[in-house]
C-alpha cells in the first residue's frame, strides 16, 4: 500500500508570557443575535471574565452545538468549535482529554443540551472534565423559529404546540445534581450581568464540570418567560453561603435570601424542585469529585520509550 511521508515539520514552540489582553482582544465577529436577546449580556460577561482572568485567547476554546446560543464562539476571539446540534459536550471532552492545559468552555441551548444532547449532558456530568458548561435557557427553540423545548413551561404556545406545551418544563438543575460525580451546579439570569459574572467566575475557579444554567430572554419568542422575576424582586430568591456566589448589591434588591450550603446535596434537590421562586446562585458543589482528564492522565513518553514499548509488544507476538 502507498506510504505517506512528510506532514508538516513540527517544533513545539512556547509563547512569551509578558502579554496582556483587553476586553476587545476577546471580541470576535459582531454578535448577530436579535436586539434584546439575553445572549448579548452573557457574551459581555464572558469577555469581561476572560479579561479579568487574562486567559490567553489561543489557550481558550469555546465549543458549542447548533442554535442561536451556539453562535457564541463566532463572537469570541478565541479558538472555537461550532459543531453539531446537541453534541458540544463530547467534543469538548475530547479537547480537554488530550489538551488539559486548555481552558475549555461549552455553550449550549436548552434544546441543544437537554433534548437532543440529553445523554451527553448526563454522562459528561459524570465524567466531570474541567469544563465550564453554559446552558442558555430561553425555554424555546430559537434558531428554528419557535418550537417547544424541554424547558418550555406547560402551556407555552409554540409552532409545534399551538395549543400550548403539553408537559411541564423539565428541571435541568435537579437532574444535573442527581448525577454521580456532579460537582458544580448553578443558576443565574441574563438580566443580572453582575450575577452572571460572579457565577461564571465561580464556575471557572471550580475544578471539574461546572454546569451553569442561565435563564435567558428570547424577545423573539419567549419575551415574558422571566418577566415576573424581572418585574417583581419578590419572585426571585438568592441562594447565599460563604462558599457560594455573592453579589452584595443584588442582595439589597432581592430580599429573599436562602442560606444554602452547596455541599448539601439533598437540600439542593429540594431547592431545585420546589416551585414558586426563581432561585439564583450555587445549588451544589463538590470539589472532591474526580476530574476526568486527571483520572485518565497518562505518562508522556519519549519517542524512544514508545518505540521500545511497541517493539516489546511485537515481541510478544513474534514467531
Amino acid at each position, binding site marked *: *500500500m*502507498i*506510504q*505517506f*511521508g*512528510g*506532514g*508538516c515539520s*513540527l*517544533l*513545539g*514552540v*512556547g*509563547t512569551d508570557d509578558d502579554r496582556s489582553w483587553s476586553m476587545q482582544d476577546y471580541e470576535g465577529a459582531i454578535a448577530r443575535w436579535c436586539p434584546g436577546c439575553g445572549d448579548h449580556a452573557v457574551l459581555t460577561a464572558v469577555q469581561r471574565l476572560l479579561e479579568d482572568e487574562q486567559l*490567553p485567547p*489561543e*489557550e481558550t*476554546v*469555546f*465549543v458549542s452545538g447548533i442554535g442561536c446560543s451556539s453562535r457564541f*464562539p*463566532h463572537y*469570541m*476571539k478565541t*479558538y*472555537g*468549535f*461550532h*459543531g*453539531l446540534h446537541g*453534541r458540544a*459536550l*463530547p*467534543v469538548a*471532552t*475530547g*479537547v*480537554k*482529554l*488530550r*489538551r488539559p*492545559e*486548555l481552558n475549555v468552555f461549552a455553550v449550549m441551548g436548552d434544546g441543544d443540551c437537554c433534548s437532543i444532547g440529553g*445523554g*451527553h449532558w*448526563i*454522562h459528561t456530568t459524570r465524567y466531570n472534565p474541567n469544563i465550564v458548561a453554559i446552558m442558555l435557557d430561553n425555554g424555546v427553540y430559537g434558531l428554528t423559529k419557535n418550537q417547544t423545548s424541554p424547558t418550555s413551561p406547560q402551556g407555552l404556545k409554540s409552532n409545534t404546540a399551538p395549543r400550548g406545551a403539553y408537559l411541564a418544563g423539565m428541571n435541568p438543575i435537579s437532574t444535573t445534581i442527581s448525577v454521580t460525580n456532579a460537582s458544580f451546579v448553578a443558576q443565574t439570569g441574563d438580566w443580572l450581568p453582575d450575577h452572571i459574572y460572579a457565577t461564571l467566575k465561580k464556575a471557572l475557579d471550580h475544578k471539574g464540570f461546572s454546569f451553569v444554567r442561565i435563564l435567558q430572554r428570547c424577545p423573539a419568542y419567549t419575551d415574558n418567560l422571566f418577566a415576573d422575576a424581572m418585574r417583581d424582586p419578590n419572585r426571585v430568591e438568592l441562594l447565599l453561603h460563604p462558599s457560594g456566589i455573592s453579589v452584595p448589591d443584588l442582595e439589597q434588591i432581592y430580599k429573599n435570601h436562602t442560606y444554602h450550603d452547596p455541599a448539601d446535596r439533598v437540600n439542593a434537590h429540594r431547592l431545585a424542585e420546589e416551585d414558586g421562586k426563581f432561585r439564583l446562585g450555587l445549588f451544589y458543589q463538590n470539589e472532591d469529585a474526580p476530574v476526568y482528564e486527571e483520572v*485518565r492522565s*497518562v*505518562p508522556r*513518553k519519549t*519517542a524512544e520509550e*514508545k*518505540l521500545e*514499548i*511497541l517493539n516489546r*509488544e511485537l515481541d510478544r*507476538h*513474534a*514467531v
Partner: protein
Amino acid sequence: MTPSSASTKAPAKKKKAAKKPKGPKVIKVPEHTVEIVSDSGEGAQRCGQIFGRVSAKMGNGTWTVEIIPAEIQPPARTPPSASGNRIRIGTKPVTNWGDAANLVMAFNEQVLLHRHRLGALSDGCIILIESMWETHEDEDIRKEWAAAMEELDGHNYKFVKVPMEEQCLTVVENPRRGKNMFVLGMLCWIYSRDVERVRHQIAHDFRKKSKEVVDANIALLNLGYEWAEKNLDFRVEVPIEKPDKPMVVMNGNQAIAIGAIASGMELCAMYPITPATSASHYLSDIFEDYGGIVHQAEDEIAAAGTAIGASYAGKVAFTITSGPGMALKTEFLGLAVMTEMPLVVVNVQRGGPSTGLPTKVEQADLLAAIFGQPGDAPHVVMAPATMEECFICMTTARRIAEAFRTVVIVLTDANLATGVQPFARPEVTAEWIAHPLDLSPVPEGTLPYDWDPKTGLSKRVIPGQPGGMYTLTGLAHDENSKVAYQPDINQRGHEMRSRKLAVLQQTLQPPEVYGPGKGDLLVVGWGSTQGAIEEAVDRARNEGLSVSSLHLRFLSPLEPGLKEIFKRFKKVLTIEIGYSDDKDAPFVTDENRRRGQLTWLLRAHTLVDIDCWGRVPGEPLRPAVILETIRGFMPNGDK
C-alpha cells in the same frame, strides 16, 4: 486405535478402552485443516486459538477462523451449540480458511453434526470424538448418538472414539472445564507441536488466573499428549519451512490496535460492539502504559465527537466500531469532512442489515461508508486484505488523514478481526510516533482553510497556536471559516474538499493483476476475500481456465487504471461476501437487478458491464465455492 468408518451398528460394538498401537503411521501432507468443536462454554475456542498461535509461531503457514453460536447460552448437545475454531496449517503461507476440515476434535456428536450439515468436513475426514455419549446411561442420549452416526454414515469419516471425560476425571473433578486442554494435548502429539511453547502460551493466556488453574491445565495438556501417544496409531506431519525473516502472529484486531499505536495516534474513542470491541480490549490493556487513552464513551455518537474533539485539539484520533455504530456516526462524519478534520474511523464489518449477524463476516458496508453522509462529503475509504495490511493501513490512514485533512474510513471485517495469521514483523519507526504538536505562533490572520486553489490542500491551525484563533463550523464557510451563504463561496468549499480526492488518486498506483494481465475472466474482490479468491483462481488455472483476479485496497478514491485492466478480459466478475440478486431469480431482470456493492461502484466508474456473485453465509467464502462460481461464470460457461 485405528480410525474406522462410522456405521450405525459398528460404533456400538467398539470397546471404549484402547490398545497400544505398534508405532504410528505418519501422514505427511503440505497442509491440513483442523476443527475443534464443543458445546459453547467447553473451551474449544481457547484450545483452537492456542493451537493456531503455536503452529504459526513454529513456522507453519496458519489461518484460523472462529466458530461462534448465535445464542448466548445455547442448549448443550445441540447443533446450534457448536462453538470452536478452524485452524488451517500449511508448509507454505496459508491465506484463508480453506474448504473442509481434514481432522476434527468433537466434544459430542451433535456439534459434529452441525459442522457436517454445513459441509465443513472433508470426505474421509478423521474425527476424534468424545466416546462417553455412545454408552451414556441416559437412553435418549444413546439414541441421539445412534441417529447422528447414521446421518454421518457414508462420508468415509474415520472415527476415533476418545474417553475424554473419563481421562480428565483422573486429574480434575469438573472435566467440562478441562477437556479443551486434554484435546490440545492430543493435537500436540498428532501434529508434533512444540509442547514447551504451548505451556508458555497457556501460562500467558491464564496469567490473570491462579497458579492452580494454570497447573491443572498443564496437567490436562500432558495427559492428552500421553493418551494420544499411547492410543493413536497415526500422526500428521505438515513440514515446516522456517521463514527467512522475523515474523509475528496476531489477529486482525490486534494488528489494528498495534498498528494504531505505530501510526502515532494516541486516542481511541469507542463504544463496545462486536466484532470491533476486541481491538479496544487489547488497546485498553497496553495503551495507557504507552501514553495513550481508550475512552469508552456513552454511545457511538459521543465516541465520534470525542475523537473529533481530540483531533481538533491535537494529534489525529480514531474511533472503531461496526455497522450499527457506523450508522450512528454518520452525522459526525459529515461534520468532520465539512471541517476537514483529520480522523480515522475503523469499521469492522459484520453481517447486516441492522443488528443482523453480529459475530459473522460480511462486506456490505461499502456504499454506506462511501456515500452514507447526506450532502457531498468526499473522504477516503480503504480496506486491508490481510492481517498484515490491518497493521500497515493504520499508519497509511493516519498519514492520509493528516496530509489531506480528511476522514479516512478503514473497512475490515469479522474474518480479519478474529482470524490469526503470521506475517513479516513490521518495521516501526520513531518518525510518526514522535511527532510533537506544533504550537508555534502563526501570523495574525492566518487562514484556517488556506486552500491551495489547485489541490485543495491546506495546513491546519491547532488551539494553542498564538495568532491562529478561529471558529470551526459545520455551516458553509469561506477560507476564514466564516459562515457564508454566497453561491460562489459554497461552490468553492465543495470544490476544495472534492479536489483532495483527485489529488490523492493521482498518488496511487494501479493494482496488480493476480495471474495473466489478460484472459477470459477477471475476478475482482476487496477486503478479507483475497486469499480465498486467489486460491480458487490458482485451481481454476490448473484446470486450464483463463482466469485472473484483481484485489482493491482503495475504494474511495478508486485506484487508477481499472478500466484498462478490465478491458483486457472478456468478462469481469465481482465476488463479495454481500448480497446481490441472482440474475435468474423471479421478477429479477437485467434492468432491475440489485447488484453487489463493489459491482455498482465499478460499473459507474468504468462503464464496463461487470457481473457479480455475492452471498451472505455469515462465514468466509470457501475456495471450492469460488472455484465453482468461476466455472459457472466463464464467458463460455452456462451462466
